């Protein structure tokens, strides 16, 4: 947690060098302003136009973004992709819970828009895991030791006993290789 805090602070020092006691509030507010509307439109398509549910999902998604602030790079396209992924997962989990405990109101009608369900999610996990196994050991290892284990480059470098620069270069080639394979298999565009 200390690392999260430190990175969050670093981020905001860059945005605003002045001391700002309301950083967290501001971050959440900014997330809402920037992504609240578009995200709600996206989510509503998958909640059978259940507005209340969609609003809950958006709120939970932005909250998670705030909690994971250290993990997220604030490049707009990336963050948007992250938000979509997370909101999708929240909807899927919610749907599963609802199907276990049906509500008195009729369930949302079957979506006409293709919504990835739990089965699709598992399939994606299988394809990605398989793609990872297909990488060279060096490439696989460096992705595992950073992103998959929530470690920064220098933390992974220490564990692997190689210079941080080597970790970054390996990670670069590993990501290119991974993207190539996933593209080939139609998982990445």
């Amino acid at each position: 947690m200390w690392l999260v805090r430190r990175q969050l602070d670093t981020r905001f020092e860059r945005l605003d060098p002045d001391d700002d006691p309301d950083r967290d509030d501001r971050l959440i507010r900014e997330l809402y302003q920037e992504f609240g509307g578009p995200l709600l439109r996206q989510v509503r398509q998958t909640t059978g136009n259940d507005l209340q549910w969609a609003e809950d999902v958006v709120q939970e998604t932005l909250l998670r973004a705030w909690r994971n602030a250290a993990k997220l790079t604030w490049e707009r396209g990336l963050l948007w992709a992250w938000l979509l992924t997370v909101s999708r997962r929240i909807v899927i989990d919610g749907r599963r819970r609802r199907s276990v405990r049906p509500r008195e109101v009729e369930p949302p009608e079957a979506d006409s828009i293709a919504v990835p369900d739990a089965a699709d999610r598992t399939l994606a996990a299988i394809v990605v895991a398989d793609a990872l196994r297909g990488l060279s050991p060096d490439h696989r290892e460096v992705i595992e030791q950073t992103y998959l284990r929530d470690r920064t480059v220098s933390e992974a470098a220490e564990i692997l006993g190689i210079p941080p620069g080597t970790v970054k270069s390996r990670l670069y080639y590993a990501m290119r290789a991974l993207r190539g394979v996933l593209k080939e298999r139609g998982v990445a565009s």
Partner: protein
Amino acid sequence: MFAEIPESLHHDVAAYALGVLDPEDIQGFELHLASCERCKIELDEFGELPGLLDEVKSASQRVRP
């Protein structure tokens, strides 16, 4: 005028895209990113990978909620 940019600096884009670049390196890379078309394109291309890797992550080791 056109100082050769070391190839290794472009490599930071992968760590940046995954959010694993060390905090002290972030600002330097963003400075580079602002004027590097190559890195902008690659950042965009890498954009989907964190979400896809999360599929594996959540399937195997529920670390985060």
